[in-house]
């Protein structure tokens, strides 16, 4: 094991160059101040604001051009023409027909940004945002940094994704600050919405199909479209690393496709540099919260439709609190890549040929993706309510208000020690903050006789199944807020969990358990790839910092007062440990044959549901399809489940023995 640890240590060292900047930021937390942009909107005319003289700051090398000119350039590009000719040859078709197809793809995909539409949005969004939100807070320094970045190099905006509001808000923000409006990669589903889809298109959205791995023409056209806009500095390119809205408010593991596309022009030195800008958008109350909870429980997400949108109007009368948008420091891709990329592969093949990225490059893209997500997490504002939710979930079904306040305050201190970014509104006393959280989230919890009670109305009267469903809904809603804490807490907490699991004080043993947990939860939480030991040390460091543990060369042991922290932390992650246990149990016992994801989710849901009904478990979160998918993915990665591509997706087959072995380790 010594040898193994040594090699791991070496791995860590080799990686540490890359993450050290991250580390530095962690110790020197200096964050910008926020400004409320709605304040100004409440004071002056929205119409005048929408019609204001808009002369955005743009990229220094940009020669302005129309959206159609870009499409033409893409169509005529060597890259696309090459693929067209190839396909024509292979399929024995005339290139004209394929070219026609490419044109159609482009027309479906392309944005057609127009100032008129932008002004329309500026006006209506002003109205809507003012009704929905109390405040929209932005770090102005971040906007200034962004302004410089936009002039200097092509910029890629990488916001977190919790709500459809994200991209509307971001464009609105850039318009407010007179910056070039971004073009936004949006899912093709939006085009299903009449009028709205076209409106979004005019506001700068371009549309990508959900999966087009096999379609070479589509891939070529799409990649070239994005790259053409990036190379020319036409507009900042915006997309979501997470690929979709996180239904759990937990950061999703990154998708690499689009990121590798926007990085390529730099790899090929078609641009001098590219700025990646992590942006953290956090909501005090998420617009889609109940939709998400239903969806996680298997009530399908309604298709995007205009009438659906109109029906959702009623939410306009609701209050969704404050939004915090933190525009992070632009990260220079050139700096990230320095010393990491072997340039040879790009020098030996003409640059317009489609080229599968080397393993080096793939690893680099993945590292960058994780780094950007970690930066998003670092700057994500946490509201007091998030702390309340975390405390409440450990004290179900009801909790004394005073105790809740006390615990919340305690958790605030701990969160700050761990580097969490808490915005405590005004200088509100703890009680007011907790109560105002309760007021904002009446659907989750309410105050009854000095007790805070989870709002699972209708529990008393109804069938057992219904009671379980209602309770699950409330728990998942509440968890959505606790989840925002998890990525800040995950390293020290997994050390705490490992301490409890191993019941040992030997560092080596605790580390090996930590490392196992980290692997198991690699899809659940965001870990920078390959630095298990470093994560462990960070976890230990943070626990030492809050006096929860003491460490020596060989040993780790909780201090007397630390046991409170250690048990709180492990309780915080217990739903995941228990949930995974349940899901693994299902897989090891109930599945003999190969199955698809479509079969797996209802299967495991029923299994958990029955246990809940019988009262054999209290782990409601195991009903979450998100957790179920992550657990399955973890087993695939650990080699206990085989994933095979079949005609309509993937088929899984379980290696019972291996799953049992993993279960034993829990």
């Amino acid at each position, binding site marked *: 094991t010594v040898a193994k640890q040594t090699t791991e240590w070496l791995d860590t060292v080799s990686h540490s160059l890359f993450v050290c900047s991250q580390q530095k930021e962690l110790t020197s937390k200096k964050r910008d101040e926020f400004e409320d942009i709605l304040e100004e909107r409440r004071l002056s005319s929205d119409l005048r604001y929408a019609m204001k003289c808009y002369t955005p700051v743009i990229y220094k090398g940009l020669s302005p051009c129309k959206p159609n000119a870009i499409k033409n350039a893409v169509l005529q590009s060597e890259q696309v023409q090459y693929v067209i000719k190839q396909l024509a040859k292979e399929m024995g078709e005339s290139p004209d027909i394929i070219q026609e197809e490419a044109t159609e793809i482009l027309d479906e995909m392309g944005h057609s940004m127009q100032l008129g539409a932008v002004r329309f949005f500026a006006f209506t969004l002003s109205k809507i945002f003012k009704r929905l939100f109390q405040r929209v807070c932005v770090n102005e320094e971040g906007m200034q940094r962004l302004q410089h970045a936009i002039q200097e190099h092509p910029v890629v905006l990488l916001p977190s994704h919790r709500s459809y509001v994200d991209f509307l808000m971001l464009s609105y923000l850039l318009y407010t600050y007179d910056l070039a409006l971004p073009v936004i990669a949006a899912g093709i589903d939006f085009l299903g919405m009449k009028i709205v889809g076209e409106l979004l298109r005019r506001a700068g959205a371009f549309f990508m199909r959900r999966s087009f791995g096999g379609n070479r023409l589509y891939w070529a056209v799409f990649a070239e479209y994005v790259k053409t806009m990036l190379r020319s500095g036409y507009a900042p390119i915006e997309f979501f690393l997470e690929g979709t809205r996180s239904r759990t408010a937990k950061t999703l593991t990154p998708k690499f496709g689009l990121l590798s596309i926007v990085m390529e022009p730099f790899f090929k*030195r*078609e641009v*001098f540099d590219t700025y990646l800008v992590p942006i953290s958008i956090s909501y005090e109350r998420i617009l889609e919260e109940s939709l998400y909870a239903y969806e996680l429980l298997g009530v399908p997400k309604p298709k995007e439709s205009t009438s659906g949108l109109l029906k959702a109007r009623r939410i306009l009368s609701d209050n969704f609190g404050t939004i915090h948008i933190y525009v992070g420091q632009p990260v220079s891709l050139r700096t990230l890549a320095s010393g990491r990329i072997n*340039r040879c592969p790009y*020098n030996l093949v*003409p*640059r317009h040929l489609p080229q599968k990225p080397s393993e080096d490059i793939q690893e680099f893209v993945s590292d960058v993706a994780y780094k950007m997500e970690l930066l998003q997490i670092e700057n994500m504002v946490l509201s007091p309510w998030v702390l309340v939710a975390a405390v409440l979930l450990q004290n179900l079904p009801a909790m004394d208000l005073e105790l809740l306040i006390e615990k919340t305050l305690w958790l605030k201190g701990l969160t700050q020690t761990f580097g969490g970014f808490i915005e405590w509104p005004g200088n509100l006393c703890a009680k007011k903050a907790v109560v105002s959280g309760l007021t904002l989230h009446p659907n989750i919890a309410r105050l009854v006789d000095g007790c805070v009670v989870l709002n699972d109305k209708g529990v008393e009267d109804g069938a057992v199944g219904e009671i379980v469903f209602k309770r699950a809904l409330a728990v998942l809603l509440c968890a959505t807020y606790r989840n925002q804490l998890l990525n800040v807490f995950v390293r020290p907490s997994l050390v705490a969990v490992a301490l409890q699991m191993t019941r040992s004080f030997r560092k080596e043993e605790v580390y090996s358990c930590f490392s196992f947990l980290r692997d198991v939860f690699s899809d659940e939480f965001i870990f920078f790839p390959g630095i298990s030991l470093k994560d462990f040390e960070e976890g230990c460091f943070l626990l030492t910092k809050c006096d929860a543990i003491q460490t020596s060369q060989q040993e780790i042991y909780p201090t007397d007062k630390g046991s409170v922290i250690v048990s709180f932390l492990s309780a915080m992650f217990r739903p995941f440990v228990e949930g995974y246990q349940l899901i693994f149990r299902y897989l090891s016992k109930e599945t003999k044959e190969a199955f698809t994801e479509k079969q797996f989710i209802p299967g495991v849901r029923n299994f958990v549901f029955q246990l809940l009904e019988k009262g054999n478990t209290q782990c409601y979160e195991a009903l979450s399809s998100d957790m179920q998918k992550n657990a399955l993915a973890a087993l695939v990665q650990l080699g206990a489940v085989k994933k095979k591509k079949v005609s309509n997706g993937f088929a899984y087959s379980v290696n019972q023995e291996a799953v049992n072995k993993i279960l034993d380790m829990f």
Partner: protein
Amino acid sequence: RQELLKWNGWGYNDSKFIFNKKGQAEFTGKRYRLGGMVLPTFKEWIEKTFGASLEHKTTSRASLNVNDVPPSIVNEEFLQDLRATKISYSQDAEDRVFRAHGHCLHEIFVLREGMFKRIPDIVVWPVCHEDVVKIVELACKHNICIIPFGGGTSVSSALECPEEEKRTIVSLDTSQMNRILWIDEKNLTACVEAGIVGQDLEKQLAESGFCTGHEPDSMEFSSLGGWVATRASGMKKNIYGNIEDLVIHIKMVTPRGIVEKNCQVPRMSTGPDIHHFIMGSEGTLGVVTEVTIKIRPVPEYQKYGSVVFPNFERGVACLREVAKQRCAPASIRLVDNAQFQFGHALKPQVASIFTSFLDGLKKFYITKFKGFDPNILCVATLLFEGDREKVLQHEKQVYDIATKFGGLAAGEDNGQRGYMLTFVIAYIRDLGLDYYVIGESFETSVPWDRVLDLCRNVKERIVRECKERGVQFAPLSTCRVTQTYDAGACVYFYFAFNYRGISDPIHVYEQIERAAREEILANGGSLSHHHGVGKLRKHWMKESISDVGLGMLRSVKEYVDPNNIFGNKNLL
């Protein structure tokens, strides 16, 4: 010849840029067309470009301090043997220092302000092939290190003596082997001793009505042997070819013996061409003593020309088209805007009001009438050669292409001045050094489709690196495309900055140049188009030619020179 040349700078003693009593720039001497002329706008350009000022001056020491020079340590037995051969030699300090360096910035800086740690112990002047054979035999016998020395114009640290060399170092100066041995008019070849300097070769051939047409920018000083040893390239390669196209036969003395071929033929299929082991070997294998080179009748007619383009992108596109149609004139070069302005600053005072009026009119036409932005436009200079009729025809073809890319003919004069500047530009560095400005040029070759990206990125990288390393004034970072090929181009960068406020300017300079080279390689450019590798760029050899490639070169070295007699440590 040593007397005619500067000991601590470029070129002839009598030719240099100075500021005259009126504070105007002037070029001295009568050797160049610019000689004796006043350059009224040059001072302003220097001040504007570098933030330099005439008040802040550094001075080189006036002459070599002989006491600083490392002593000459030569084995007495070797000296006895050497005397017996009657080959002339010297252990004089000045002679040895003169051959201890090339013309890299750091080398000139050392001459002005310091001293080399290691220099040759003795200089020998063989006068013929046989002399070289004797010297190499003696060196092998006494285990002595030989560093061949031709024109001394290296810009790759190739002539620097390895500091750790413990053996006696002999500088083998080929300058006395400078005869044309014969001219073969039937086959149009000439056999020439390798020490001959470019301009002498052309002058002497011209007496018989011939030329080689090989004109590297250093041709006033560089030698035939040096060209072979570094794989040189000439300005007019489009007609005459580069050195590898010109050479028919090479005779080289190595510690293993003499390497040569059995015939002088245009081409042969006898395994890998041994000439290609020799060309670019940078003095690591032996001494080139005699070269048979192709000659051509001196062209009947020469005509310069120039074209203005609205921007660099259009200019490059035009050059690419010219290359594609394979109609490149003897020389075609494209300078970027910064270099265009630089060239403009070197315009001498005009003789008459009429010319100045004409200049004004031209400027008006280009900037106002044609809408060229003087801060973006760029210029191509052209040189046509051949018989008169064909030249005129050729000229029309090239200008027609240029028109398609928005180019405007800008006159013979501008073209001619452009080429003249090629020779005087090297003198400017010495002027800069007097005013805290250091600079250098470096080159690369690159495929056509990457030319623009490479130029932009390298220039930008230089600017950024300067900023990051504390250079307080914006640098001059400029480039030109100097050669066109079927598959790509040769690009030249000039880079200079004002180093006031920096304690170790040479170190900073070297770091930036290194970063610039990294950038070139990352952009798909080569390690060198014609300057060679020397010791300056060795670091990247493995990356450039792969492990196996390097091993192949090493094994040749091991066979030819097992005791590392030719121990200048270049290349490998």
